[in-house]
């Protein structure tokens, strides 16, 4: 499903040495996998996730997503592909503040041709267990609930893959575990999930763990 070959990414920094964050990363993900990406802070996890999520382009290397060559896609095609095949979950949730849970979840549908958008949003909120919080504003929800709204938003378009960058990083242990339980459940139901974490206990729940170190990806035994 996802095939990375020799992906490199370098950041030029004015007045400093260029930073080689990814040095030829090879990485495959199969349909239905539940993969954790671990590594020390600043090791390039987010950079890799941005490339996987079509938000950033590698300097070199080859990326095939669902059989398509990503480097050949135009900016508009990338946007459409993000909308249809990828669901994002962020550490800071990134919910719109004065917008209700349902409206936040509806958001990706604005950029698709979907119909019955409210129904789809409500369904997604039910899947994350927030059927009681449909018209709450983010400020009226706990951190864990906000992250579950964000997960519902990632789910609403039935993406092929969910990419989560430290989804439990801003949560206490209990709500972090709830989010993990939700991911496990979604994965059992067929979703492909990639997530970044610092927390070994969280990473251990994935079916596969990969580690980034010094710009290279190594399989971590699990």
């Amino acid at each position, binding site marked *: 499903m996802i095939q990375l070959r020799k992906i490199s990414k370098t950041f030029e920094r004015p007045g400093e040495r260029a930073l080689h964050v990814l040095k030829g990363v090879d990485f495959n993900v199969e349909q239905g996998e539940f993969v954790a990406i671990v590594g020390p802070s600043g090791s390039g996890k987010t950079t890799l996730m*941005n490339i996987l*999520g079509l*938000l*950033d382009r590698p300097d070199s290397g080859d990326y095939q997503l669902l059989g398509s060559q990503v480097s050949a896609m135009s*900016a*508009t095609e990338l*946007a*459409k592909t*993000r*909308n*249809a095949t990828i669901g*994002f979950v*962020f550490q*800071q949730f*990134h919910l*719109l503040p*004065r*917008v209700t849970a349902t*409206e936040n979840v*509806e*958001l*990706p*549908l*604005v*950029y*698709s*041709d*979907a119909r019955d*958008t409210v129904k789809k949003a409500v369904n997604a909120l039910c899947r994350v267990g927030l059927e009681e919080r449909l018209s709450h504003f983010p400020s009226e929800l706990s951190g864990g609930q906000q992250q579950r709204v964000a997960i519902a*938003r990632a789910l609403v378009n039935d993406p092929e893959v969910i990419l989560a960058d430290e989804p439990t990083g801003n949560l206490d242990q209990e709500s972090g575990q709830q989010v993990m339980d939700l991911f496990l459940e979604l994965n059992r139901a067929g979703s492909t999930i990639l997530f970044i974490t610092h927390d070994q206990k969280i990473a251990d729940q994935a079916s596969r763990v990969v580690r980034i170190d010094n710009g290279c990806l190594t399989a971590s035994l699990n």
Partner: protein
Amino acid sequence: MNWKLLLAGSFKLMSRYKLRTFFMGFAVVVGVATLIAGRALSTGSEQQIMQRVNQMFGPGTILIFSSTLNNADLEAIDQQLEQVISWSPRFTLGELDISYQGADRQAAVYGHSERADFVWNRDVIDGRFFTNDDLVRSARIALIGTRLAETLFGSTSPIGEEILIDAIPFSIVGILEPVGIDPHGEDRDEDIYVPITTAMRRLSNTDYVGSAKIVVSNHQMVDQDAEQIAEIMRERHLIVAGEADDFAIYTSKFAGRSVARANQVLDVYLMVAAGVVLLLAAVVISSIMLVIMRERIAEIGLRKAIGATQLQISQQFLIEVASVTLAAGVAGIGLGIAVASLISKNIDVPMVISAQSIILGLASAVVVGVVSGIAPARKAAALDPVEALR
């Protein structure tokens, strides 16, 4: 792309960020209100003045003024120009002493012919107008304006009463139709009309009528007709080429044009004032948009991550700002109408709200929105989602 959802989302945000929406819309409300109220009153006053001009002139009329104009000139014009329907001379006596039962005052007295009711467009509302016989006899009779009648006679009917004009007794036979204040600010309801022959022979001693009005058949042609009349006058008054005319001619078109020109100046002034306010509005909106852009960076990054294209981001920003300014335009039209009707009541000028000025108001509101939204929209569209989400 789901436009309905995007629009609904924009409207929701507008209503949930009330303060920001208010500040963005306020200047547009003021600008559009200025535009609407200004145009309503300027069109209203133009129509009012044109109505008065038409009432005094009538369409298709030509006025001649000359200290040496006589009836023979007018008869010659009537004979030589087929298009003359009617004509009537007017002799202006100016302010004369009027007296009734020892009460003295002054009034503007005019000598008119029996055709003045039609040609000068002023009939009587009570009693009778002059007849040919009155003119032949130089009868000592008079028609008086309503306000003068009221001052002199109160509620009793003046008809049949005798007044002294310059110490000469005149019997009142009719009351002139009220016409109000003329564009020079004179109250025409204080006028007195006497037969022009009486005015020229008994009150004055002259062969010259001084002025006349000529009615022609086609009101579109008054300017050409006036030129022909000027030719006849030059011939009769022996004015050679290059010599100055001893007469002046005005047409109903000329009067209309000068009113229209005076109004155009006012219109341009109002347009400039409204334009300046709307320009300020655009600057204000643009800066507010750029300030809130900073707050909205994460939102833009998120929208891009979930699949918005650059075009869709800039469209959203433009739609948001244009819908705020459009709504402000609607509010501005309401405010403008309210202000115009308030002023209209106080200064006694009618207001006219045309579809044209409403369209102009809405269009300028949308244009202000789009113009002030372009820079922020482009900035938002160009934002790198990776940076924006960090």
